[in-house]
């Protein structure tokens, strides 16, 4: 005797359950599959590649009409189940049909949460959940504007997909950084930068106030700071709620989701539930990995086999081309937790591991997620990492036997690993070029263009050469900062960041400085790097700055100094000129020169007079023109619309604005 199994919802979870069940017991069941969507099971998570144009809908269908037919599944797609009568063991379809079940499986998924903003019911305000939503977005093109509310996984995949179609997309996110549940700030920053590079406008810490419409259709989103973001379509991707209405009306035990036990059985022994609609041990679910586990357990339960659903550690990736990120576990700061952080600014790589009790409990990676599976394994297995702590962050290639050998990591890279980001050159292409005769960096550059643009991958290219050619290739030693160390500027910067070196002695120690306290070459560099990386923790060391920066004047060949007050955009006043003239008289300045940077240089000031002359100039409202700094010195302007016969724009005003915005940052502009 076949049993009647009715399944409500043809989603990712029930699809998997059905497969497992019918594989094991093809003849035991009369299955009726209801689905509110007018189609069968498909791989919902692949809607994003469909949206981006990388896949078609046909490619993401998981079960064909043929499969349902062969397995004797009665499909009632496009039909909602209206009610369940548990006492009679029947369900009522939308059209009034009443069907009897022996076993019932609920897999109703979730409903997207729509923020009840004024205007949320306007035409053109949609969620991102099913093929219909996807199609609405796919209908947009370069002539259209779209606003996405929500900077989480779903919102960003929607935004990136539409941006790939040329749509002008703005993401509005209420939190300070994107994907804040999965990423920390640093990774959020890198992600934002990558999305902005794709032409997406990203607004964080932005509060939506109202959806504005015209003739019943959305026209713009109004933020609470008054900004209006015009749009033809507004996508809300701010979260999901388990879809429990039907279960609730049927009197099943429901909390946030439908309560199930470890066997996926609800409060009614003949009713099972799987997927996003369930609540298990207080948790609800939003990713497919646990749902697949649930599906298997539910099938086993129906088969009368013993199995139990266990919640596992979850990880997240974002399916946006060019944004490689990975997040798993718990990475909030906390007592007894330590961080290991690795950053490579040039490659846009960020890795952070959170350690507690000698095990990794959380990981966030951006830019280079190649080793993510390995790290995820360590989290899941709670592996004790004490012995590999020093090299842990560098990944599996650095563990055991060959620590710190950079060639091992390069050798371990697959052929499709990108080496040169600027020109999109993979390791395989470089290997092919080497096989075709290219024997050194110059030849690789000439034949593949690898490292021919920004040059940051030069080291990697050389390592590929070394790995491929073996002894035939001699790695050129990179120039070290100075004689105090063998490390390059990049090496040291990496150490400062990854090892959290926050003082000069820490750098000297950890990087094996050969001198007690550096020299005139490395100290100013270290002082700058430390200030740049740890602006709050590191105190500037004046004794590591060149004399000009200490005295706010330029030392001259005779040991006197030159003093250059700032003149914003080259504009001055009679009062300023008088003050300069007075200072020149008072301090017997031998030479007064107009500079090429549109300001006035007082040359030949004695070192001991500098505080006094600056006091006078400051009193007249003038500050240093930083004529010595490795930062913004001056902004030269032409007079622009105020006076020029041919002026079309306020160039002086722009110059002043630029100078006022950028001065005094003391940062290298390279």
């Amino acid at each position, binding site marked *: 005797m076949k049993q009647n199994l009715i399944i409500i919802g043809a989603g990712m979870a029930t699809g998997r359950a059905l497969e497992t069940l019918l594989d094991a017991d093809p003849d035991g069941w009369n299955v009726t599959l209801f689905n509110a969507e007018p189609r069968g099971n498909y791989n919902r998570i692949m809607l994003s590649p469909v949206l981006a144009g990388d896949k078609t809908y046909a490619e993401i269908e998981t079960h064909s009409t043929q499969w349902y037919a062969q397995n004797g599944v009665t499909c009632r797609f496009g039909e909602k189940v209206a009610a369940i009568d548990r006492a009679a063991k029947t369900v009522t379809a939308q059209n009034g049909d009443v069907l009897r079940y022996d076993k019932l499986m609920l897999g109703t998924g979730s409903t997207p949460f729509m923020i009840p903003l004024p205007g949320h019911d306007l035409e053109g305000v949609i969620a991102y959940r099913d093929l219909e939503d996807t199609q609405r977005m796919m209908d947009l093109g370069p002539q259209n504007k779209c606003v996405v509310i929500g900077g989480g996984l779903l919102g960003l995949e929607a935004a990136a997909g539409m941006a790939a179609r040329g749509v002008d997309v703005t993401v509005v996110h209420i939190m300070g950084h994107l994907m804040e549940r999965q990423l920390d700030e640093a990774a959020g920053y890198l992600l934002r930068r990558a999305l902005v590079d794709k032409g997406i406008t990203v607004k964080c810490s932005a509060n939506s106030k109202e959806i504005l419409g015209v003739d019943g259709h959305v026209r713009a989103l109004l933020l609470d700071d008054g900004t209006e973001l015009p749009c033809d379509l507004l996508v809300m991707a701010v979260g999901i709620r388990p879809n429990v209405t039907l279960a609730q009306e049927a009197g099943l035990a429901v909390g946030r989701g439908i309560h199930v036990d470890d066997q996926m059985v609800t409060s009614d022994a003949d009713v099972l539930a799987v997927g996003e609609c369930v609540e298990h041990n207080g948790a609800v679910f939003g990713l497919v990995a646990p749902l697949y586990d649930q599906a298997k357990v539910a099938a086993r339960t129906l088969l009368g086999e013993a199995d139990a659903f266990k919640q596992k550690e979850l990880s997240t990736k974002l399916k946006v081309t060019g944004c490689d990120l990975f997040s798993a576990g718990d990475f909030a700061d906390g007592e007894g937790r330590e961080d290991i952080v690795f950053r490579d600014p040039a490659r846009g790589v960020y890795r952070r591991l959170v350690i507690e009790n000698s095990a990794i409990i959380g990981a966030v990676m951006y830019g280079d997620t190649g080793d993510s599976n390995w790290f995820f394994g360590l989290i899941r297995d709670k592996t004790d990492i004490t012995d590999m702590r020093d090299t842990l962050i560098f990944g599996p290639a650095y563990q055991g036997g060959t620590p710190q050998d950079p060639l091992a990591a390069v050798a371990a890279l697959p052929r499709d690993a990108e080496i040169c980001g600027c020109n999109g050159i993979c390791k395989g292409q470089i290997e092919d070029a080497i096989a075709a005769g290219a024997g050194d960096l110059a030849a690789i550059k000439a034949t593949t263009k690898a490292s021919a643009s920004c040059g940051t991958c030069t080291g990697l290219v050389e390592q590929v050469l070394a790995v491929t050619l073996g002894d035939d290739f001699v790695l050129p030693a990179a120039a070290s900062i100075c004689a105090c160390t063998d490390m390059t500027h990049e090496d040291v910067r990496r150490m400062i960041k990854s090892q959290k070196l926050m003082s000069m002695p820490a750098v000297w120690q950890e990087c094996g400085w050969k*001198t*007690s*306290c*550096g*020299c*005139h070459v490395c*100290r*100013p560099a270290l002082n700058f790097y430390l200030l740049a990386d740890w602006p709050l923790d590191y105190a500037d060391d*004046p*004794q*590591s700055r*060149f*004399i000009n920066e200490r*005295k706010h004047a330029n*030392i001259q*060949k*005779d*040991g006197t100094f030159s003093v250059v007050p700032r003149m914003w955009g080259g504009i001055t006043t009679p009062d300023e000129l008088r003050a300069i003239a007075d200072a020149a008289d008072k301090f017997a300045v031998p030479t007064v020169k107009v500079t090429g940077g549109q300001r006035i240089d007082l040359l030949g000031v004695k*070192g001991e007079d500098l505080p006094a002359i600056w006091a006078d100039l400051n009193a007249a409202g003038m500050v240093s023109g930083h004529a010595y700094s490795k930062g913004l010195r001056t902004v030269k302007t032409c007079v622009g619309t105020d006076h020029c016969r041919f002026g079309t724009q306020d160039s002086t005003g722009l110059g002043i604005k630029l100078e006022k915005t950028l001065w005094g940052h003391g940062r290298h502009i390279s």
Partner: protein
Amino acid sequence: MSDWIDIAALSDIPRRGARVVKTHLGCVAVFRTGADDVFALNNACPHKGGPLSEGIVHGNAVTCPLHNWVISLETGQAQGADEGQVATYPAQVKEGRILLDKSVLVSRTPA
């Protein structure tokens, strides 16, 4: 006969910094190293007279701010490939005070 005079407190000079003492015969640069040793030298680089007191101090050496000659604070000798020497003077720290030898300063020959 040395005749020590109190110039300043050690703490008046920052670590790896210098101050200048004006004498009748010229400026003397007084250096304090990272290890709190004190040295006194002519404040004029043997290369082109650069003010050594304005240089960056590292170890027991200072780099001249004009052309980066490195001068030993102990011997006054230019280091490395450069050749030249600058006069040095006895200096010591006692109970946190910097002392210079007046007798030597007075008898020094003008640079």
